[in-house]
């Protein structure tokens, strides 16, 4: 019954977004239309779209579940996702809009001209977007196993992949933008609605709500969920959080799929307005994770949140390797973690069920799937722009070729990226790939952000510096993840789960060292022009 209701609601969402795609298809007949919606998206609309691009099912179901089980320690995750936007607002959004065309590589190679810089910038964009894309698509399989266990996960991945390709191929950036706006609105109404129901359940008394969150019965004794230390312990826990926090707060300003959204607005002022709106929406959403999570713990009860343990993709991993379950349990217990038997990802749907009935559960499930669709569409478009605009048009064709060739290549690349994502996600669906998101943030923070900031502010910054910076940030992030507990378990060489705290300084040092090594007068001469353009908007792309 619930499966049917979810499918009907998801079908309504798909129907509406397909109508939007049909309407948008007439308007993506040029490159500027396909990648940047002709730069006619308004600031407020773009703010909603940024939120839709940023909200993921992992935030909605995952963080809510973490708060339900670990209280404050789960909520710690929510904080960084909002604070990160200050970096975007202060340092990146406006200069990027003033100096770029379609991709992050445009900004970097504006003054650091040359094939090497653009090629490496495109490589880092591709690494980030593909890692994100695979994590999201594999998440579809986990979500289907969790919420709609009667459906096959392979067919779900294929359906999501085909819908995403339909939006991107036919509707380009305009359709993707509206899919994201609609999703952001749905997700916010679901989370704010649930939070209001939680507060209403406690007769609108915050005191009694917090009071019961401070004494949640669990295994016979009361746990205080408002207290820190239920998930992270001691010095290692603190350094883990600091490293993850740094990658999050700096990395968001280097995420190509977020940055690409700033090319869709007409001016730097509109870019600023859109970050402001995004920050209000994103903050509101992450605040609700507290209400939903603590609400699920107090109203539903931890014991009743479902049959399985572990967050995210581990569900399908264990479904395929049941013999591993005990080993994982023991490993976590050894490291002093609480190992809850029930699955925390079910917290939000079950809370919805307890407060609003099966229809509410179905709505929450449908919104979770819509969220994945909105995110993967933006990622596919971004990856295709790096392939088509940076690699094909700028490097292989040396800037030649007419509009129809560009559009054809852009669509062909989007199709290739989508097909690759579908195949890889089906192949990887039994594995725990949640670490890919952390890796993508670490690469963005270590490879992209130092180079973007130095290009904008340091006259002497050179091409060698940019290339060394990006390669050392990219390489050290991947190497440290490979040596971390995520891959090597208890034999890990590097103790932290996120490499940010080491890889960000390495990326920065690489960029500075490369610059001091080899003087680059040509790039120095372009600094004045870049600075004037970035600050005044003179000569900005329209």
């Amino acid at each position: 019954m619930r499966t049917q209701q979810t499918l009907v609601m998801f079908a309504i969402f798909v129907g509406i977004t397909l109508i939007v795609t049909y309407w948008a298809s007439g308007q993506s007949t040029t490159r500027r239309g396909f990648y940047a919606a002709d730069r006619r998206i308004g600031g407020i609309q773009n703010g909603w779209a940024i939120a839709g691009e940023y909200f993921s099912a992992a935030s909605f179901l995952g963080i809510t579940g973490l708060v339900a089980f670990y209280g404050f320690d789960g909520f710690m995750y929510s904080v960084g996702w909002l604070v990160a936007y200050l970096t975007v607002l202060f340092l990146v959004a406006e200069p990027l809009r003033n100096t770029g065309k379609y991709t992050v590589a445009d900004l970097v190679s504006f003054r650091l001209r040359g094939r090497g810089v653009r090629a490496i910038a495109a490589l880092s964009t591709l690494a980030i977007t593909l890692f994100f894309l695979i994590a999201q698509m594999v998440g579809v399989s986990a979500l289907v196993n969790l919420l709609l266990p009667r459906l096959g996960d392979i067919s779900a991945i294929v359906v999501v992949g085909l819908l995403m390709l339909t939006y991107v191929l036919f509707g380009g950036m305009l359709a993707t933008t509206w899919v994201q706006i609609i999703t952001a609105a749905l997700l916010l109404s679901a989370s704010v609605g649930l939070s209001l129901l939680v507060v209403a359940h406690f007769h609108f008394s915050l005191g009694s709500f917090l009071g019961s969150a401070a004494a949640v019965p669990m295994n016979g004794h009361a746990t205080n969920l408002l207290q820190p230390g239920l998930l992270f312990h001691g010095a290692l826990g603190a350094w883990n959080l600091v490293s993850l926090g740094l990658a999050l707060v700096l990395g968001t300003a280097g995420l190509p799929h977020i940055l690409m959204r700033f090319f869709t607005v007409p001016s730097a002022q509109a870019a600023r307005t859109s970050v402001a709106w995004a920050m209000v929406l994103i903050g509101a959403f992450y605040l609700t994770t507290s209400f939903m999570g603590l609400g699920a713990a107090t109203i539903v009860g931890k014991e009743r949140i479902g049959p399985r343990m572990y967050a995210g993709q581990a569900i399908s991993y264990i479904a395929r390797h049941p013999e591993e379950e005990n080993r994982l349990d023991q490993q976590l217990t050894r490291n002093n973690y609480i190992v809850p038997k029930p699955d925390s990802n079910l917290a939000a749907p079950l809370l919805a069920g307890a407060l609003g009935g099966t229809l509410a559960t179905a709505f929450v499930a449908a919104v979770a799937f819509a969220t994945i669709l909105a995110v993967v569409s933006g990622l596919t478009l971004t990856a295709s722009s790096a392939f088509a605009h940076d690699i094909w048009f700028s490097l292989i064709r040396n800037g030649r070729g007419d509009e129809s060739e560009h559009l054809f290549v852009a669509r062909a690349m989007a199709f290739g990226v989508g097909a690759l994502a579908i195949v890889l996600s089906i192949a990887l669906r039994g594995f725990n790939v949640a670490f890919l998101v952390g890796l993508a943030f670490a690469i963005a923070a270590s490879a992209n952000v130092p180079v973007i900031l130095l290009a904008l502010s340091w006259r002497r910054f050179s091409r060698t510096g940019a290339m060394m910076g990006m390669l050392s940030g990219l390489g050290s992030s991947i190497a440290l993840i490979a040596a971390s507990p995520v891959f090597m378990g208890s034999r890990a060489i590097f103790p932290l789960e996120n490499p940010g705290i080491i890889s960000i300084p390495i990326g920065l040092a690489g960029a500075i060292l490369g610059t001091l090594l080899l003087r680059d007068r040509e790039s120095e001469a372009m600094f004045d022009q870049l600075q004037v353009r970035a600050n005044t908007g003179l000569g900005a792309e329209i």
Partner: protein
Amino acid sequence: MRHVKTSRWEALAAEPEFRALVRARRRFVTPATIFFIAYYLALPFSVGFLPQLMSRPVLGPLTLAYCFALSQFAMTWALLAVYLWRARRIDLQAARIRKRETRELLEG
């Protein structure tokens, strides 16, 4: 606009009016960035290294840690508001330069 000579960009970059614009931006952005990163990192550090202090209930049952985490939202929105207010003035400076340059270009 694409055909502005390089020498013109350099002259523009050296103008006192433009330098003032860059300074006005940096005067806000640099300290604000240092402040919010420090304020944000203080949360995991304090929770990780001072767990007893941070577990103390201060607002009813709400612990110091939870209040600190919630204050991060307030801090972020407050900095956003200050930046939006500041940026309006910086916009005016930039618009003056932009208007003048565009006029000069049209007149040859």
